[in-house]
């Protein structure tokens, strides 16, 4: 199975609004997910503008931008994307 990609924005705005915690996500992820999810940090997703700063922090999961990212919302999305999990 192709790994789920999780990219975390390390830009100034996202970092100030919560990325710091998200960068540790691999350490608190369920052990059985670690082979299915590829976590990486990227310099900036270029998603913050003056209009949507409140959407930060941003992450990108399988190419899709997620705003207001939190450990919980990221975990929920990964759960949906994992094969089999959604059908339970």
């Amino acid at each position: 199975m192709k790994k789920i990609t999780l990219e975390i924005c390390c830009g100034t705005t996202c970092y100030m609004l919560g990325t710091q915690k998200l960068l540790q996500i691999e350490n608190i992820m369920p052990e059985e997910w670690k082979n299915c999810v590829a976590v990486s940090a990227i310099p900036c997703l270029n998603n913050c503008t003056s209009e949507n700063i409140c959407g930060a922090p941003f992450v990108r999961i399988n190419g899709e931008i997620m705003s207001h990212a939190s450990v919980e919302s990221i975990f929920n999305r990964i759960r949906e994307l994992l094969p089999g999990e959604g059908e339970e």
Partner: protein
Amino acid sequence: MDCYETRMEPGDRLILCSDGVTQAGLGQKRYKFGWRRSGELEFAQNIIRKSPEISAKDLAYAIAFQALSISPEKCTDDISCLVIYLRHPRVLRILTGPPYHKEHDHDFAMLASGGANDVIICGGTTASIIERELHTKVEIDLNLMKASGDLPPPGMMPGIGLTTEGILTLSKVCTVLEKKQQDKIPLAAKAIINRIMENDCIEFIVGTKVNEAHQDPNLPLELELRRNIIKRLAIILERDYRKKVTVNYY
């Protein structure tokens, strides 16, 4: 007091030391007459052969510590070493901030690809412009998070150099240099400071486009404007660290 005159060429090194260095190890089986000038010279030449660009500071340290290590038990004399290295100035180029006009992005990015001894890219948007224009990708090692302190972790752009977040990191660098802070320096700031210290001329290439999100009152901290941080940095680097600083706006 004797006076000597010598003529040095670029690449030459002048090594001065106290007799505690040349007499180190005196009386030991291997160093009956001490390390002597010949021993020290051979040691220095070996090091230079292995790392031809070794800095004056590192070479002086290496010689002094070698002298210390061949002294029996403890050192009994003053061990001092001074190295003067005559070389061409080393240039560090720091690119920070997106250019004001998007059509200048390519020329701006090209400045990251050559013309300096070392390059640092400070800023997420700046890094993504250079990634796009030079078809490269920043690699950030998440294992570095533990040492990252309160700054985003640094990354590397293959073939180009170090990358870091922009405003927070540069502000931290500025504060550390102004306060002469020695410890508890977050990794990204430390990486920039180390590179600044290894080079003589610091060229700032400053993109002047302002990210309006940074001025949003909802942010937990007030962010300083990039241009002001660079001005503060230029002053402190010239005044206290004897660097030759140039600033170009884009």
